[in-house]
């Protein structure tokens, strides 16, 4: 019993360097910056209230209120801003600007904790006030920002540590936070893959065909796609296999590199062939943060004896990167 408990503690609190957090922070900073730049021209259209937007923000927030009145929304920010005498368009522009600043601060690691909280809150407000137009990318960005907000910031490559000389937190604390993100990704992929595998359409290539020819994801010409029709079932089965097998193969030292590479290639392909570049990017960031840094350590650890062996034969002194 004691041994089992000890194993559980060792699993949940491994000693992990803060590189995972550097990847998550920089990645989310870049993602937010890209999101802000791409949404600037449609920001007012998406989040204005009655009469000025595409779908009124008031309607989306009323639908949200049916679920919960406590979930943050842009309406709260607008109401607070109006108390200061600001108009709705100005408040919305300021919200966009603060979100962009938070993204840039995260990118460089300046005032990391404050930036992470501001980014999470404003992004959550925007997504919930645009609940009728939100999609998977928004959910994954919120997941990433939530983990970043509660993570043991700052990391050693941030402005906060290099310039402001703030201390880096305990490795076991980093290990726990990284582990939770890893487990969450395993659940996401396993259930995503399993639900795809339940229907026949991912086995016979029909879903791949429909996903790639469905507007506005039809980046590739259907004629070109049809000429590669026989490859679609293989690709569909490959997606199901990669996703369902993720929690089984990502932990093993032998298969981690292959699985991570497969998943990253899949998300790059989604970004390029379906035009979902923000979705592809956030998934790459989460995967690299969760399993990327550890992979590098393991590759170096595995390669070290070989390097030393080859080095001693050739009288070369080995200096592995720790």
């Amino acid at each position, binding site marked *: 019993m004691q041994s089992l408990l000890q194993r559980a503690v060792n699993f949940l609190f491994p000693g992990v360097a803060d590189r995972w957090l550097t990847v998550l922070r920089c990645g989310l900073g870049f993602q937010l910056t890209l*999101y802000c730049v*791409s*949404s600037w*021209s*449609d920001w007012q*259209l*998406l989040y204005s209230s009655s009469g000025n*937007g*595409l*779908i*009124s923000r008031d*309607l989306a927030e009323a639908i949200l209120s*049916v*679920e*919960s*009145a*406590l*979930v*943050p929304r842009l309406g709260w920010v607008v109401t607070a801003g109006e108390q200061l005498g600001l108009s709705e368009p100005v408040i919305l522009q300021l919200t966009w600007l603060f979100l962009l600043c938070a993204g840039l601060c995260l990118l460089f690691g300046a005032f990391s904790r404050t930036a992470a909280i501001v980014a*999470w809150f404003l992004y*959550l407000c925007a997504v*919930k006030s645009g609940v*009728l*137009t*939100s*999609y*998977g990318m*928004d*959910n*994954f*960005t*919120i*997941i990433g920002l*939530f983990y970043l907000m509660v993570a043991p910031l700052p990391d050693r490559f941030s402005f906060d540590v290099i310039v402001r000389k703030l201390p880096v937190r305990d490795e076991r604390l980093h290990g726990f936070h990284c582990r939770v993100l890893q487990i969450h990704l395993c*659940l996401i*992929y396993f*259930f*995503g893959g399993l*639900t*795809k*595998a*339940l*229907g026949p*359409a*991912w086995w016979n*290539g*029909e*879903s791949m*065909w*429909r*996903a790639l020819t*469905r*507007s*506005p994801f039809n980046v590739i010409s*259907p004629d070109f796609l*049809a000429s590669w*029709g026989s490859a*679609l079932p293989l690709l569909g089965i490959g997606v199901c296999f990669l996703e369902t097998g993720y929690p089984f193969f990502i932990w093993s030292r032998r298969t981690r590199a292959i699985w991570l590479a497969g998943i990253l290639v899949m998300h790059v392909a989604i970004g390029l062939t379906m*035009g*979902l570049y923000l979705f592809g990017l956030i998934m790459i960031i989460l995967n690299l943060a969760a399993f990327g840094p550890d992979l590098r350590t393991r590759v170096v650890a595995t390669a070290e004896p070989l390097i030393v062996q080859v080095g001693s034969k050739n009288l070369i002194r080995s200096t592995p990167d720790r």
Partner: protein
Amino acid sequence: MEKGEALAGTVLGYGWPAGNLARQALELYTHSAGIETGYGFFAPNVPDNYKLVFELHYRDGRVAHALPTVSDAATGVRIVNLLDRLAEIEHPPLRELMVRMLAYSVWREQADVIEIRAIFGFVSLPTLEAFTLGERESYQTMFAYDFSFLPAEPEQP
């Protein structure tokens, strides 16, 4: 699968009254952490593709067609999600209200339009086999609404 869904619903407090504080707190947590929805994107099948077309009737009798437009491709993805949700709405007045808002956003840019007919339908995509035999996508109307946003003229004495 349904038992699992029911169990998850119970854990998340979906059986409790909407005003229940514990349920509200759970909703707040799940929304804040981004875990309020499942992860079955495009599963088990890729859903149908919907399209909303506006038929613009001008004062001089001209008729033109328009689609809901945005500036960036990333926002275009959001429009697709909006149309998917529109198709799922089972409450006709809410559906009409949403289509009216979208039509109004088009009318704002085209002040000489006197009436807008909004036609919502789904795009039937051919299978790979049918495509290679020459079949192409077709559009089937699900519902249509007529809107006029001109101010009502005062009655003659």
